[in-house]
């Protein structure tokens, strides 16, 4: 049965994030309730990815240090081309074990979050916020090249880890591909596999409007734009363990449900990243 391989230090898995860094990412997030706090899409997405990396590190932290259950890559695509998006000591690195991520943030910011004071009110609490990559946005959206780059990276990864829990690729963009039709490149990426199953590709389309998101659809009937139908068609059907996780959170799922969200707001982005990177079989 696919997607059941144990994830361990001797058999790690990987996450690869493809991040749109085109000019339109400098526009404000189109949220109904202003949840993005006036930040641009690029800034909000950088926050979400940095938080996700932080959570992954904490997930892999044990009393004796970090266990390298995962390797992680973040590839940016935009006006300056397609390439690794980490900053600081990890600059130009394509795939990095969690241990290296943990010990090499660019900087650790002090941020403030509001927490329940236990008496019906909120108090401000200072938290550490490690940052691995900064927001960026200019030029076009070379999504097709990003998929081709991902293909090269994962082909190499899979040759080195033939029995791994299949890599999960999460592509996050607010627009259409500006280089070529990405469909075939996405299909080629999804056809890569380990002995435990094919690479999973999930697509997240960021909202520029306040319209309701279309989350985890079973088909493309409600998708009105051609571009959104293409993104749907190149999104993997959720494996059984993810269907169960979503179902437990009250999201209606079937065997045809795909890892795709159209017109996502920030809440939807964070949930998508959480679901997409939650371990299936972590040892």
């Amino acid at each position, binding site marked *: 049965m696919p997607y*059941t391989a144990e994830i361990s230090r001797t058999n790690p898995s990987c996450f690869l994030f493809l991040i749109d860094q085109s000019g339109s990412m400098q526009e404000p997030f189109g949220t109904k309730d202003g949840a993005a706090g006036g930040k641009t899409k690029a800034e909000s997405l950088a926050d979400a990815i940095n938080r996700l990396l932080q959570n992954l*590190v*904490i997930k892999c*932290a044990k*009393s004796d240090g970090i266990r390298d259950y995962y390797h992680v890559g973040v590839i940016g695509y935009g006006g300056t081309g397609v390439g690794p998006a980490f900053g600081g000591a990890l600059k130009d690195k394509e795939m990095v074990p969690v241990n290296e991520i943990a010990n090499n943030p660019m900087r*650790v910011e002090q941020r403030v979050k509001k927490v329940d004071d236990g008496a019906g009110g909120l108090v401000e609490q200072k938290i*550490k916020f490690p940052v691995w990559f900064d927001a960026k946005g200019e030029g076009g959206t070379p999504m097709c090249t990003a998929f081709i780059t991902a293909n090269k990276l994962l082909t190499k990864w899979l040759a080195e880890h033939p029995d791994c829990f299949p890599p999960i690729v999460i592509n996050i963009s607010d627009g259409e591909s500006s280089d070529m039709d990405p469909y075939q490149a996405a299909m080629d990426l999804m056809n890569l596999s380990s002995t435990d199953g094919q690479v999973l590709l999930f697509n997240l389309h960021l909202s520029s409007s306040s319209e309701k998101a279309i989350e985890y659809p079973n088909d493309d009937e409600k998708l009105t734009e051609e571009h959104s139908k293409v993104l749907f068609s190149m999104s993997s059907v959720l494996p059984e363990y993810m269907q169960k996780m979503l179902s437990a959170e009250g999201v209606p799922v079937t065997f045809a449900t795909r890892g795709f969200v159209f017109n996502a707001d920030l809440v939807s982005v964070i949930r998508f990243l959480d679901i997409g990177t939650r*371990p299936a079989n972590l*040892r």
Partner: protein
Amino acid sequence: MHVTGKLFWMPKKGNSIEEYEDAAYPVESFEVDVAEFKCAVADGATETSFAGFWAALLCEGFAKGYAIKELRQTWNDAVRQKELPWYAEEKLEKGAYAALVGLHLKKPRGKKNPYVVEATGDCCILHVRENQVLSAFPISKSDDFNNSPALICSHEFASVDAQMQKHMTKGEWKDGDSFFLLSDALACWALKRQEELQDLANVLQNVETQEDLNRLVDEERQLILEDGRPSMKNDDVTLLCVTVCS
């Protein structure tokens, strides 16, 4: 009462002995004559930090009657003694979690030999008499195991404590009865074995040495079922066999 106990354990395949995060109390095999007796097995949650230490505290705490508040204080004091990197500090804030099953053989009352079991999470106890499994607690069917049991946290979080379900049961033992305390992977396998072959009591009673347990667990981890999963999940394994006579 005369109580003998045999304790065997092994870490997950691929992990070192130092990475074993189950625990038991007493911490080794024993033979005692006592008026009453307590023992426990706990399973520290893999995804939490200092979980093995927390599991060990819970077992000892159960056996010696320490309050949960005291145990939490001990855990917190101990893990915060040295400076930690940012991620280890953050992890500590989330606390350690563990499942626990504890057996209390109480002082005999007349001809009655009562016992009480407390359990939180998916560590299990089996009561065996004359080669028959009389009961399994708190889980009695292999299908009822899942990946998110309610566990005991090293931090006092109101929301976690509200979910923490301590289950209790009681019964009576007779001369020669055995109790098997098992951590979850072994317990899930054991209940399935009993459901399919009804020979579990025999199988467990034949585990007389550490090598016997190693052999059994290795075989079952390697045996792949029709659904592609191993017969026994690769996890830390702990088996405490307690036999009691008046």
